[in-house]
């Protein structure tokens, strides 16, 4: 076998263009939904309504970005199902080490293209996508459904908000400031080898086997 020398700066493609489009449609709808949803839920955040042209407009911003959320979320859930929903022994070890983020940096198993934390985020998003879409539609057309079902939807919808608000913020942090270089995977799709080695060592090995064998 030939010895190949790689620079840490070499760029390799980690995501497909389709993945990036799906990601940003889904992410964009989520951000709009969060902003409009918080503007509708908290009276002291009425400045958000003012920004969008009033509460009536804000309701429709929320409803129609909800449609985008439901549609793009369908693609997101399907596209990342194989990698996101399958947990292995390796992932349990990853969790036991807090992913190297919290109490130790040692002994964290190398990750595939999705680390265990990202898989957990996938599961959270997939479950809340189903619940949010269903309860959202029912809340949009409350006269088509019974009182019990409709009133049940309100707390479920907001329970998902409570689960998502913190998770989305942490996802934003870990994808940007917390892990420099990561955002490139969702912008150009091409990251440095040094980044891949640090963040997704197992995936990099598989990549090299495939491309440099």
């Amino acid at each position, binding site marked *: 076998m030939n010895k190949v020398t790689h620079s840490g700066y070499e760029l390799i493609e980690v995501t497909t263009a389709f993945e990036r489009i799906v990601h940003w449609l889904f992410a964009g709808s989520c951000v709009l939904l969060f902003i409009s949803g918080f503007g509708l839920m908290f009276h002291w955040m009425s400045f958000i309504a003012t920004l969008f042209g009033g509460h009536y407009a804000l309701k429709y911003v929320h409803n129609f970005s909800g449609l985008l959320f439901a549609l793009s979320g369908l693609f997101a859930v399907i596209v990342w199902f194989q990698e996101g929903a399958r947990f292995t022994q390796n992932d349990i070890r990853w969790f036991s080490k807090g992913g190297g983020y919290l109490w130790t940096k040692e002994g964290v198993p190398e990750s595939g293209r999705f680390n265990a934390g990202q898989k957990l985020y996938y599961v959270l998003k997939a479950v809340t996508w189903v619940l949010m879409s269903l309860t959202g539609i029912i809340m949009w057309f409350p006269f088509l459904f019974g*009182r019990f079902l409709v009133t049940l939807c309100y707390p479920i919808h907001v329970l998902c908000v409570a689960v998502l608000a*913190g998770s989305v*913020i942490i996802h934003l942090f870990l994808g940007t400031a917390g892990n*420099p270089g990561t955002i490139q995977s969702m912008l150009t799709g091409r990251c440095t080898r040094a980044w891949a080695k640090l963040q997704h060592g197992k995936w990099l090995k598989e990549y090299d086997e495939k491309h440099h064998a």
Partner: protein
Amino acid sequence: MKEKIMLVDVSKCTACRSCQVACKNWNELPADQTENQGSFQNPPNLNPHTYTLIRFQEVEEGSSGIKWHFRNDKCYHCTEPGCMKVCPVPGCIFKTPEGAVVLDSAKCIGCKYCYHACPFAIPQFDDATEKMYKCTFCYDRQAEGLIPACAKACPTGAITFGDKDDMMTAAYARAKKLGGGATVYGDRVLGGTHVMYVLTEQSSVYEKLPVDPKISLSVVLWKDILKPLSMFSLLGGIGASLLYYITKGPKRPTFEEGGEKHE
């Protein structure tokens, strides 16, 4: 401003519907073209331009045949209103010191939350305007020292209006005088309603009158627990991220000199 109570004494109601007409008149609401539904109740239910309605209920009685129950129905103007608890628009549903719960339809965005949050399902949605409407307790008349239109129009004294203390005393005195199963309805539910009844029978006898109306557990969970929790989650996420960044710092890749060897 003193808290006011409207007392509806069903024993005095003759179902003349003066209240319905007076309400339409004062609020400039159009008449409804309705169909015969086999009942004198007309229109068949509250609707966006019918804020108050006499409910006609026929009850069969063993020997004497049939008995009527006439009940003036409208917004109860709760002290703890479910509609106001869920309304997303500041100032759209508000309370007055007299006890009126007013829905300012001009501000309504048609989210319809209030309909299911109201234990009596009072607010009515107008498809044409995409807004909710309900009884205002004639708070505009009250501001001018007038009593609500329905109470003003009632010829038999079935609807009376006055200071809370006086009306409470009057309600219990009347129920006692009527005797039998006569009860007072409203003061023990939803923090006390500002529309109260003297009923000639137990409240369970009357259609569309919940015996123990409550703001549903779902609404309480939603507004009192999960809503603050979602703000806590948002701020917690931001706080945890900032704290992590300044204590542990980012996880940076290392770029080795001369590149990495790979077989």
